[in-house]
């Protein structure tokens, strides 16, 4: 899947999870750039991504995800 399409799908998921319809993300976006992205909503985000793409992260994968770019790479790896 094209990276830009993945980014758009991820942005839609994040807008829902963080309840921010205007949220714009890039590959470098991380928790420090998004006010609502804390450890609680991070788990909600992970659950929402798993549902959307129909796979499961391992706990070590969750720990290793530091920004949107990491998320996209991991999603690409999981769905390929």
């Amino acid at each position, binding site marked *: 899947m094209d990276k830009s399409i993945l980014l758009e799908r991820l942005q839609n998921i994040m807008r829902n999870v963080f309840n921010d319809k205007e949220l714009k993300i890039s590959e470098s976006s991380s928790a420090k750039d998004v006010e609502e992205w*804390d*450890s*609680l909503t991070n788990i909600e985000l*992970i659950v929402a991504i*798993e549902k959307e793409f129909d796979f499961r992260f*391992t*706990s070590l994968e969750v*720990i290793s995800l530091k920004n949107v770019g990491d998320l996209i790479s991991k999603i690409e790896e999981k769905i390929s």
Partner: protein
Amino acid sequence: MNFIDEVAEKNRFVDIALSLMYEKYSEDDLIIRKLSDLLFEYSRFYSLSPDNISEKYMFFLKEYKNDVKYFIENDVYYKGPIDRQQYDIALIISAILTEHRRKIMKELLSINNKEKMCIIGVGPGVELSIISPDKADIYDTALPDFTRQYFSKKGLSLNKKEFVKEKIYSNIFAIELLEHISDLDRLLKDIRDSLNEEGFFYTTYAFNVPQRDHLTNLNEKKIEEIFSDIGFEIHKRIYIEHETLVKELKPYNIFYHMKVR
């Protein structure tokens, strides 16, 4: 297998949060084990399945997020009813799954002197499970039936009433309680008068934590002025930052070790 694992099997959110804790600690971690056992006893007492527990926990989290939003928009805590079971379950599970509440539990575990102990405000028994006293007087104005039955079997004296000075103690605990109290002066004076000369008062205060049953949100300077005016001397302050709330709130707890001056 801990009982919390059974809840995690039903709930992916809990599953991920728990597996992150297991990565840091272990499945045999004392705090996780003690609180998972408490959750099991609680579920058994009220005939709640892991599914029921999971639903009630998620419902509490959803409301809590709304309360946080309300606080950000209005600068006052939302006031509204609390479902006691949802609240009890959230208190137990969040002490397993969140670092800030775990740090409070860890501090409690480190207190070894268990002489002449009194514990005020115990809810479903999270702190009681961690401290595990052989003997203690317990006071809670809203003592849940579960706590009364389960811990009275362990030989503790449980009183569903307000704490007032009746005896003298070496250790008094009021953990995650003070923000729920409207008349702090009255309570703190009775605690002061119930401590022996070497006695310690262990307490916490939550700053910018918009739970709907938190009646006060004093700043650090104000709460410490109150302690000082009553006659307490702070011996130790442990800062505990919260990770699980909107960052702009900068929520935190302080765990205080105090003595009477």
